C-alpha cells in the first residue's frame, strides 16, 4: 500500500472535480424545489426527494394500482427515474406500500386527511360536463371533494381534495369527446407548487393551466 502520493492526490482531485462539475451542472439545470411533477405519498418535499432517491424502482414495482410511474429524461436528467404519479394509469388509495418499501426514506410520512399529493383542477375546455351532462368524477371521488354547481359543472373543494387522482383516472373526456390533441383530461391533478401558482380549481384551457 503506498501512502498519499502526489499522483493519487491529483487523481482524487480530478475525479472530485469532474463529478462535482457534472453534478453541479445537472443540479443547476434541474434541481429546482418547485416542480410540476406529482410525487407518490410522502415525496412532496422535492429537495429531500432529490437528495435521497436512488431510483431503485421498488415503489413502482410494489404499487398495486399501477399509478406510480417514472420521471423521464425529458423531465430533467436529475429527476429522471424518480417516482411520479401517472393518474392515467391508476389512482392512489394510500395503501402505504410504496412508503414501506422505500429503502432511503424518500417517501416519508403521509396523512391523506391533512397532506396532499396535489389538487384536482377542472379543465373547462375538456370537461364533458361543460358540453353534456357528466358526473363521473363527483361519483368517483373517495373524499367527497367534488360537488356540482347549479349548471351541473364539477367544482373541486381544494380544502378537501388531497390529489388522489381517482377523478383524473376515471374522467372520460378523451373517450366521449372528439380528439382535440394531447392527453389532458377534463380534470387534472396539479402538483402542490403548481396549484399554489394557480390559486383556483378550474381553468379555461391548457395555457392557463401551465401559466
Amino acid at each position, binding site marked *: *500500500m*503506498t501512502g498519499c502520493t502526489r499522483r*493519487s492526490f491529483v487523481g482524487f482531485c480530478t475525479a472530485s472535480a469532474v*463529478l462535482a462539475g457534472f453534478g453541479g451542472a445537472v443540479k443547476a439545470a434541474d434541481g429546482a424545489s418547485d416542480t410540476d411533477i406529482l410525487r407518490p405519498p410522502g415525496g412532496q418535499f422535492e429537495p429531500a426527494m432529490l437528495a435521497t432517491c436512488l431510483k*431503485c*424502482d421498488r415503489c413502482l414495482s*410494489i404499487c398495486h394500482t399501477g399509478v406510480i410511474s417514472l420521471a423521464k*429524461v425529458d423531465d430533467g436528467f436529475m429527476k429522471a427515474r424518480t417516482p411520479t404519479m401517472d393518474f392515467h394509469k391508476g389512482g392512489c388509495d394510500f395503501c402505504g406500500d410504496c412508503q*414501506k418499501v422505500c429503502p432511503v426514506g424518500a417517501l416519508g410520512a403521509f396523512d391523506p386527511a391533512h397532506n396532499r399529493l396535489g389538487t384536482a383542477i377542472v379543465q373547462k375546455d375538456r370537461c364533458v360536463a361543460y358540453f353534456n351532462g357528466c358526473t363521473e368524477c363527483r361519483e368517483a371521488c373517495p373524499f367527497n371533494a367534488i360537488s356540482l354547481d347549479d349548471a351541473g359543472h364539477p367544482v373541486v373543494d381544494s380544502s378537501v381534495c388531497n390529489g388522489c387522482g381517482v377523478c383524473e383516472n376515471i374522467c372520460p373526456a378523451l373517450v366521449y369527446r372528439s380528439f382535440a390533441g394531447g392527453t389532458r383530461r377534463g380534470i387534472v391533478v396539479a402538483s402542490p407548487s403548481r396549484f399554489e401558482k394557480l390559486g383556483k380549481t378550474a381553468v379555461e384551457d391548457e395555457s392557463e393551466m401551465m401559466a
Partner: protein
Amino acid sequence: MKGKSRLLRTLTALAVVAAVCLGLAVHTGTGTPSAWGIQDVAAICPLGALESALASKTIVPPLFLGFAFVAVLTLVFGRAFCAWGCPVPLLRRIFKPKVSDAEAVETSCVDECASAPVEDSSASPLPSSKKRKVFWQGVPAAERGGLGDSRNWVLGGTIVSTALLGFPVFCLICPVGLTFATLIAIWRLFQFAETSLSLLVFPLILVLEVLVLRKWCHRFCPLGALLSLISRGNRTLRPQSDTEMCLHTAGKAECRRCADACPEQIDLHDSVVSAPMSECTKCRACADACPMGAISFPLLKAKKKTVPVASEPEKD
C-alpha cells in the same frame, strides 16, 4: 470444466435481470440492484446508501439495515457481486463477444481468459514476464485497492461531490442503474407505448461507459472500489491451491495459468506481485484454468496441505 463457471456467471446475471422483470410484471416490489428485497427485508446498494445518507444527512432504519445486510454479504462473499450479479460484464459479453488476444491481456476480461484454450495460452508468443501483468493500469497489482488505485479516486470523488451538492451524483451515471433504467424504459415502451428521451440517453451513457471505456470495472467503478474496501474483512470462500496437486508448488512445472486467468491480477503463488485477496470476485476463472483442478474455494481456510499463497520467490 472450462467455461463452466463462465456460463454460470452469465446465468446468475441473467437471473438478476429476470427478477427485475418479475418485479415489473407483477407487483412484488422486488426493485433493482440499487435496492432490492421482499417487503421490509431488503438489501441496498452500499454506494447508493452512502450517497443518500450523506446527501440527506439522515439515516433511516431501512437504509441502515439494508446497508448492514449488504456489508455482511460482502464480508462473507467478498466482491462476488462484481462477477456474479453485476450486469456490466454481462453487457460486455453480449455486445463485445470477441476481443483480440492482445486486448484480452490488456483489459484482462474474465471471459476471454477463462475461455482461452489451454494449448493457446501455453503456446502464447507473449513473454511470461509481460503476461504476468505485474503492473496494472499504471500501479503495481499489489497496490490495487490502495490510494494509487484510480477506482478509489472515483469513490472519493463520488463522496465529495455528493456531500457538496446534496444529491447522489454518481447514481445518475452508474452503469448498473442505467442498465436497469434502460430495461425499464424498454419495458414501458412495450407495456404503455411510453416513448421518451430516456430510451436514447440511458443506453448512450451506458455504451460510453461499458463499451468505449472498456476498463470501467478496473479503472473507474467506485462500487467495485467500495466492495473491495469492505472485502478486506473477507476471510471466507477464498481461492486456495492444493500444494500437492499444484504443478507450480510441487515443482513439476512452471505453471501460472491461474494467475494469468485471474482478471483481478491475483497470483496464488506469489504474494509479492499479487493483487490483494480483497480484489477476488470469486469468479472461479482460476479454478477453471488450473489443469490439475487444484484450486478450490473452501468456506474456511483449510489448516493443512494447502497454502493460499506460496512463499517461493519468482523465478525468471
